[in-house]
């Protein structure tokens, strides 16, 4: 009831000076609009760029590295156990590139609560045969559904359907660069030869464009079964397990644990792509800083206008105080005015920010590197909108606080006698 009365008075004062109030609110609106548009655009771009690599990189990748065996036979022999053995000309052993006991590993990984999901993979180096020439390349055997679900494989298949890999036997999705070199259309059959000399005709069901041209010149995809057939391996043959975690930050720990538990190599995303985090966090930091500077400038506008209003309404304040309103009542009135400007300006700002985001979202953005992106990317994360309105309230409150305190300290006697 008392608050309602104070709100009434605040409203009347606000409307009595509606032009200035409007200017103040427009200042807030402008800064919030810019804040939202800037952050939305910046983060849209960020996640697009990060996605280029992060989407396609496993958080933890399990595989067997081609490397010399650390347990050389001489170290196991009783007779030489006590000495320090020098071995020369050790060779890497490539006999076990497959994940040993892959079925059991997959079950164990699936049961781990930290894991969001995983996708098995076979990497096979091949030669594409086109007439008289052979082109170096690699075919990855993938589980299309899992690969699409966890690594957005779908997004990079520019023509054809990714599911055809699974539905059509002996099919292949060629990298765009490979397809251009082979002059292969969708529906054509290409010949693929493995390093062991096995040759298999595969039907082209789509093109794949990752945004990294060099990658597309060598890489193609086929189903796991097809690659197993190509390599002449049994159906439990898997060389890689790409694991996606619920929390990316846990990757190094999980990687270490799995490496020990499954007796294989594990690479985590932080080690593989350490530079990414830095780039995106610096870009976010800059956009937050610009947004907050805008808000602070708007805050000074509010501060000025409230100060003017207080000088203007000195008489009103004096009369209110003489007729029984306390200093804290007067303070509430002016804080109320500031917050009203903040809320109205802020909400309009959110609306305009959303509109500008829609606008940016419509601007064409065509680049060879990003085949699936047709317009500028915008992030509509509600987080920005919440931060925007909270900041607009904080700045307007801060801007209103000092003028309001000044108003609450107005001595009615000085004003009334001064006349």
């Amino acid at each position, binding site marked *: *009831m*008392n608050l309602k*009365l104070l709100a009434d*008075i605040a409203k*009347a*004062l606000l*409307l*009595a000076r509606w032009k200035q109030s409007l200017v103040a609110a427009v200042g807030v609106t402008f800064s919030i609009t810019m804040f939202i548009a800037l952050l939305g655009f910046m983060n849209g771009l960020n996640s697009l760029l990060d996605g280029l690599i992060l989407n396609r990189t496993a958080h933890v990748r399990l595989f067997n590295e081609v490397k010399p065996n650390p347990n050389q036979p001489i170290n196991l022999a009783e007779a030489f156990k006590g000495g320090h053995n020098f071995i020369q000309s050790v060779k890497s052993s490539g006999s076990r590139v497959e994940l040993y006991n892959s079925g059991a590993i997959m079950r164990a990984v699936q049961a781990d609560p930290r894991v969001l999901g995983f996708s098995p993979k076979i990497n096979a180096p091949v030669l594409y045969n086109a007439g008289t020439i052979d082109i170096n390349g690699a075919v990855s055997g993938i589980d299309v559904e899992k690969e699409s679900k966890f690594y957005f494989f779908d997004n990079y298949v520019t023509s054809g359907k990714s599911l055809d890999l699974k539905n059509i036997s002996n099919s292949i999705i060629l990298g765009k660069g490979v397809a251009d070199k082979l002059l292969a259309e969708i529906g054509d059959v290409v010949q693929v030869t493995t390093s062991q000399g096995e040759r298999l005709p595969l039907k082209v069901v789509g093109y794949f464009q990752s945004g990294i041209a060099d990658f597309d010149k060598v890489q193609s995809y086929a189903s796991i079964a097809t690659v197993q057939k190509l390599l002449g391996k049994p159906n439990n043959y898997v060389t890689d397990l790409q694991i996606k975690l619920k929390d990316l930050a846990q990757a190094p720990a999980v990687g270490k644990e799995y490496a020990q538990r499954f007796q294989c190599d594990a690479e985590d995303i932080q080690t593989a792509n350490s530079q990414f985090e830095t780039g995106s966090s610096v870009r976010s930091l800059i956009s937050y800083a610009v947004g907050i500077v805008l808000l602070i400038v708007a805050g000074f506008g509010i501060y000025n206008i409230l100060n003017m209003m207080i000088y203007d309404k000195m*008489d*009103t304040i*004096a*009369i*209110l*105080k*003489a*007729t*029984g*309103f*306390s*200093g*804290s*009542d007067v303070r509430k009135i002016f804080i109320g005015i500031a917050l009203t400007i903040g809320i109205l300006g802020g909400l309009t700002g959110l609306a305009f920010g959303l509109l500008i985001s829609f606008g940016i979202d419509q601007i064409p953005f065509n680049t060879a590197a990003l085949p699936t992106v047709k317009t500028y990317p915008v992030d509509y994360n509600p987080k920005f909108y919440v931060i925007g309105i909270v900041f607009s309230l904080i700045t307007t409150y801060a801007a209103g606080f000092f003028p309001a305190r000044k108003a609450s300290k107005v*001595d*009615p*006697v000085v*004003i*009334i*006698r001064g*006349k």
Partner: protein
Amino acid sequence: MAKTVLQSININKYFSDPVRVQVLREVNLAIDQGEFVAVTGKSGCGKSTLLYILSTMDTDYEGELRIDDVVMRGKTEGELALVRNEKIGFVFQFHYLLNEFSVLKNVMLPGLKLRKHSAEEVEHKAMERLKTLGLEKLALKMANQLSGGEKQRVAIARALINDPIIIMGDEPTGNLDKKNGDLVFDIFKQLCEESNQTLLIVTHDQGFADNTHRIIEMEDGRILKH
């Protein structure tokens, strides 16, 4: 004997800017229920200063002030505001009304602040006050559309809204012409006689003062006679 509504005991007041000057000396004063008192004196004799101390707005004084038998010293700023709201009605020389509000709302504001009655009751009461002062036709006009005399009468209605135990006026007729000044005086007189309303009016209009019940004459911060 009538009840004492306002009492000051040995009130001293100094202005310390730029040099320390004593403006009130040992002011002892008691005003009873139903009295119509005028405070007169030359400009600068301290009569307005005294009024602002008595009204609780100025708290920088020595001595004791009792309103309705309650000592004012030691009360917080908020408590004093409540005292002014509930027990004192104000009529100023220049500061009339809030231009942002209608006449009716201006009269209602102190009542709404007090929250003793619901908004409807306060509105009803405000209309009644306006009616007795012959202002009911102006109720919905904005305050700045009124003439000076009308404004002053609305200010009186506002002062009456919470049934204060005392009405204080600082030169309430000082800025009005003879006709309006007389009108305001008549209203005060009527309030005193019909409603037994206590009034304390600072004025330098001798004609005004002569018609009141009691004149307190001040000079150099002292009360000469009362």
